[in-house]
């Protein structure tokens, strides 16, 4: 679904961070924004509430430069995790090329993770998208906190298909680029 504009020689790919509220999606994007060379990234846009909860989305364009004559750009989006913002989540998923599901490793968030995953499937299905054909990875975030589930338990709950998954502590940057690289590479492979 990546947009290849042969006339202007541009390729635009959309990667969406999905997951439960307060799971760390915005933190992932903020880390990317803070560590990517300013010449390669655009302005980060956050449409957030006064308490910094994502209201509509966060957006960060990242420029890969010209690759064999094609100006290539990734559009990184997060969706609002709060349950009642589903219309926004669904809208952002339109035309998605790759998805990173950010799971909260805390035991008390297990149910919310599963609900968010179901919501992802439902919203993709409403567009006729199949997650089996979309580059997809899972990040088990907040591995530094107490009372977290084991990775094995999280895999059993969230990753029965065995997609690439990574442990993360997004607030310290751990796993952030590893996850993003994995999905980005899967996305460019789809353009072969």
């Amino acid at each position, binding site marked *: *679904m990546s*947009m*290849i*504009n*042969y*006339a202007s*020689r541009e*390729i*635009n790919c*959309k990667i969406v961070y999905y997951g439960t509220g307060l799971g760390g999606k915005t933190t992932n994007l903020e*880390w*990317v924004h803070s*560590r*990517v*060379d300013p010449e*390669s990234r*655009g*302005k980060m*846009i956050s*449409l957030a509430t006064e308490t910094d909860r994502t209201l*509509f*989305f966060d*957006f960060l*364009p*990242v420029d*890969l*430069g010209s*690759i*064999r*004559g*094609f100006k*290539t*750009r990734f*559009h990184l989006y997060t969706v609002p995790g709060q349950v009642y913002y589903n*219309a*926004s989540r669904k*809208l952002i998923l*339109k*035309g*998605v090329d790759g998805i990173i599901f950010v799971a909260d490793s805390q035991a008390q968030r297990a149910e919310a993770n599963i609900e968010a995953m179901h919501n992802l499937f439902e919203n993709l299905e409403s567009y006729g998208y199949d997650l089996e054909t979309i580059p997809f990875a899972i990040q088990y975030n907040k591995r530094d906190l107490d009372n977290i589930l084991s990775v094995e338990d999280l895999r059993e709950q969230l990753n029965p298909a065995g997609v690439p998954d990574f442990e993360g502590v997004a607030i310290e*940057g*751990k*796993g*952030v*680029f*590893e996850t*993003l*690289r994995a999905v*980005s*590479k899967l996305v*460019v*492979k789809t*353009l*072969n």
Partner: protein
Amino acid sequence: MTDSGRVPEQRGVPEASLRTSVRDTVQREGARVGFLFDDSGMVSAAGGNPGDLEPTSFVSLSFAQFAAARDLAPEATGGELSRLAQVGGRCRFVLSSIFGGRTLALLFDDAPEALHDTRKGGSSGPGSYPDVMDVDRAAQALSEAGSRRVEGLGVNWSRDAEGEIDRIFKGED
């Protein structure tokens, strides 16, 4: 192609016509810049001079704003929203619904005194809406031409892209 590194030529008439119609509309209506984007928020044609404006930010926010307003309209009025305009002291922008789920965003540099001149800058002075019929017709023609198979970019392209991904997203894990 695709491993020669050459860019495949895909300049079909409908695509070219759509791009031309956007450029012509921007010029005719006296807009500073215009962007046509699809229903996933990706730009498919542009015209004018963005100046200091960052196109991706402008388009992303325009996409979100129009999508939100468009979804809100049936709830509020039972009807559809085909235009959305915002006017400030020094500029205004108008978002217009285009065939096929596309949106045309036009940004105008209108001085405050021009706000009362309904015919300034083509047909879309601050008191009226821009004429986007040409863009609409071109978008419809493109849809009627049907989607054509697009060649892939080849393994060499994706290999180079992966190298750039490693370089840009190299942060410490």
